[in-house]
């Protein structure tokens, strides 16, 4: 038993840390630290910097442009990326559709899409959830009907993150209305410019518009945009959702946020003393730090076990990552809002950002309440925490 990294792993960590230090654009980094929304360019530019270095799709197999890193190296990379802080490579492209394409796609699809994903030439969005299919995703009703060498897609997707920037969407659509609900679904790639697709932004409780509804009205898509086999889309979707287990804990991001929280708690004053010296507030920070350290160790246990597992059973520890990781992220955003007291109240509309008006002091307070509201999402997306508990109860406890 040994919790330390090897000499090689430490050298790797230093290399990655140094690269991030020198190459994350200053403005992007500043936005992340302050908790402001990233622009499309922030994400595209950064992913291209990574791609140039050969790291944009680090977790993919080498033959498709990946790095061939060990599980521990991947863990280190992600940890350093988050603590830098730097943006994640676009998850809908790199972690979701990419692996589905290289695992189940045709040679043409691989050749065309994979390099474009790595360089973020195509911005991808995810067409899974529907108004009537959330936790019960297999209950989706968007239909794709084959007509000659085309699909005709009709229906509605929702919660489509950053669809306003997207060039492409991957869609789960029902292709066999008579089959059992999981068995009549196909996985189809669509160009967002195809006639019949409309995008309607949805304003969320944080005031921003990061998600959308996407409507499909007789959208005509070439038959060869089907990934893998017809009616096997549910298997591919499950593969996609189970693909990335460790990054979901977002330990590095939470660490970075705690450092920010402590910085602000030194500036903000309560009862004539910095918030950091208020025993009650400090105890709240300490409590979340303890839980985060435990989660970090749990994540390391999962990573260390990853290389050694023979069976396909989920590691009991891995199921904790999503639940505990989201609770901790939410807890920290709560404290970040609390630390600025009444200055959490003034609301700055995203659309007004960049105006010449001076911010209502203190400037750093503006994004904190919106992040708190926005982060309610982390215990809902990717399978709500309640669904996660159902999964653990069944798969691990055998209940």
């Amino acid at each position: 038993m040994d919790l330390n990294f090897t000499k090689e792993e430490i050298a790797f960590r230093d290399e990655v840390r140094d690269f991030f230090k020198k190459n994350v654009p200053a403005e992007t980094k500043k936005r992340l630290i302050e908790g402001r929304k990233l622009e499309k360019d922030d994400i595209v530019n950064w992913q291209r910097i990574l791609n140039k270095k050969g790291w944009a799709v680090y977790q993919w197999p080498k033959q498709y442009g990946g790095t061939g890193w060990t599980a521990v190296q991947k863990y280190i990379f992600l940890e350093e990326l988050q603590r830098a802080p730097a943006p994640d490579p676009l998850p809908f492209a790199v972690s979701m559709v990419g692996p589905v394409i290289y695992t189940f796609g045709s040679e043409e699809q691989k050749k065309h899409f994979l390099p474009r994903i790595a360089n973020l030439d195509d911005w991808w969005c995810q067409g899974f959830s529907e108004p009537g299919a959330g936790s019960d995703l297999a209950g989706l009703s968007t239909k794709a009907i084959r007509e000659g060498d085309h699909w005709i897609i009709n229906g509605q997707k929702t919660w489509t993150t950053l669809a306003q920037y997207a060039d492409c969407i991957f869609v789960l659509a029902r292709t066999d209305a008579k089959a059992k609900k999981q068995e009549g679904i196909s996985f189809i790639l669509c160009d967002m410019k195809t006639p019949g697709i409309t995008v309607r932004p949805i304003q969320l409780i944080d005031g921003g518009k990061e998600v959308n509804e996407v409507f499909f009205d007789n959208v005509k898509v070439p038959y060869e945009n089907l990934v893998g086999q017809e009616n096997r889309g549910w298997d591919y979707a499950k593969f996609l959702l189970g693909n990335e287990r460790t990054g979901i804990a977002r330990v590095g991001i939470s660490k970075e946020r705690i450092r920010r929280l402590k910085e602000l708690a030194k500036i903000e004053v309560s009862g004539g003393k910095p918030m950091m010296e208020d025993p009650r507030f400090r105890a709240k920070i300490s409590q979340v730090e303890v839980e985060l350290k435990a989660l970090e160790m749990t994540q390391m246990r999962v990573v260390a076990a990853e290389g050694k597992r023979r069976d396909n059973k989920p590691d009991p520890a891995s199921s904790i990552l999503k639940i505990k990781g989201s609770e901790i992220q939410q807890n920290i955003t709560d404290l970040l809002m609390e630390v600025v007291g009444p200055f959490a109240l003034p609301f700055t509309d995203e659309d007004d950002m960049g105006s010449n008006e001076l911010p209502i002091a203190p400037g750093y307070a503006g994004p904190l309440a919106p992040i708190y509201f926005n982060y309610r999402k982390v215990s809902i997306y990717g399978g709500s925490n309640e669904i996660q508990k159902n999964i653990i109860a069944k798969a691990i406890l055998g209940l």
Partner: protein
Amino acid sequence: MDFEFSEEQQLLKDSIEGLLGDKYGFEARKKILEGTDGWSRELWKQYAELGILGLPFAEEHGGIDGGPVETMIVMETMGKALTLEPYLPTVVLAGGFIRRFGTDAQKNKYLPQIAEGKITGAFAHTERQSRYDLFDVKTTAKASGGGFTLDGQKSVVLNGDQADFIVVTARVSGNQRDKDGLALFIVDAKASGVSRRGYRTVDGLTAAEIQLSGVTVEADALIGKPGAAYPLIEQIVDDGIAALCGEAVGVFSALTEATTDYLRTRKQFGVNIGAFQVLQHRNVEMLIAAEQAKSMALLATMMVNEKDAVQRHKTMAAAKTQIGRSAQFVGEQAIQLHGGIGMTMELKVGHWFKRATAIDIQFGDADYHLEQFGQMGGFETAA
């Protein structure tokens, strides 16, 4: 980064699990618990034969040179079996002081006897007013005739009633709450002036109130330098915390598993109650609390020999906080999900719960350690 046991460690785990599996069934444990000692001297001999009573000691002192991971393995298994023998006070605490800081003469005198199962020890530190502060000591040690005379009152001393030797903290100088001025002495339990009032603790273990009235010891009873004992006490309590974390892991996993088994078999409304989502989720939350505790126990184990006392102490404070929080949640939920039967002494669940509760309190509860952790600045520094 590797969380797997070596072959030798696995062997140790298997052999102690084998022994306790045989000897620590519910009825057998009940018999031991109801005996006069409250623990089994016969099993103590078998621990000696297995080598675990000398686990952390050097081979020349009858030990097997085990490290923190080996101690964790033993403690976890003991937590699962809910053993009653004074392993922690004898091997980790009192024995630990001598192993880490004792003179050669002290090591030669005590460690082989501990390893052979001939003597047990206790660590007498807590006083009426000290709560969990390790520096708060009123008991005095006055130099007299080349030795020392000890006077004071020690409370809730684990195994204090039956120990053959007692490691006592006392003040040679300074005020009650000074970190400087503390000293450690090995006191023969039968020495004149030592009076002990033994009792059971809530979890069925034994402890004592110890009165020291003009107890004289020779200079060779001193561990370390007089006046400079505080860092030594911190180290041994950190050892104790790490060991308790290991024990807690055994207790929590046993509580979680027992509850899952109960949900699978208990029928109400014509179905196994495990079919109810509200109970499933509660059981999952127990699992999460137990796994988080296990993660911190591993970290505590890895940090217990850290030379940087602040880093070490900070990690122990964080670990003990997590263990305490998990103890309360896992324990309380195990009783709740068992319903009425969980309230009885007729099922092991209640016994585990009581041990979990005691583990939280020992060496400082979750709130105490959370405050310590905060005062030391936490893990992350302000941006």
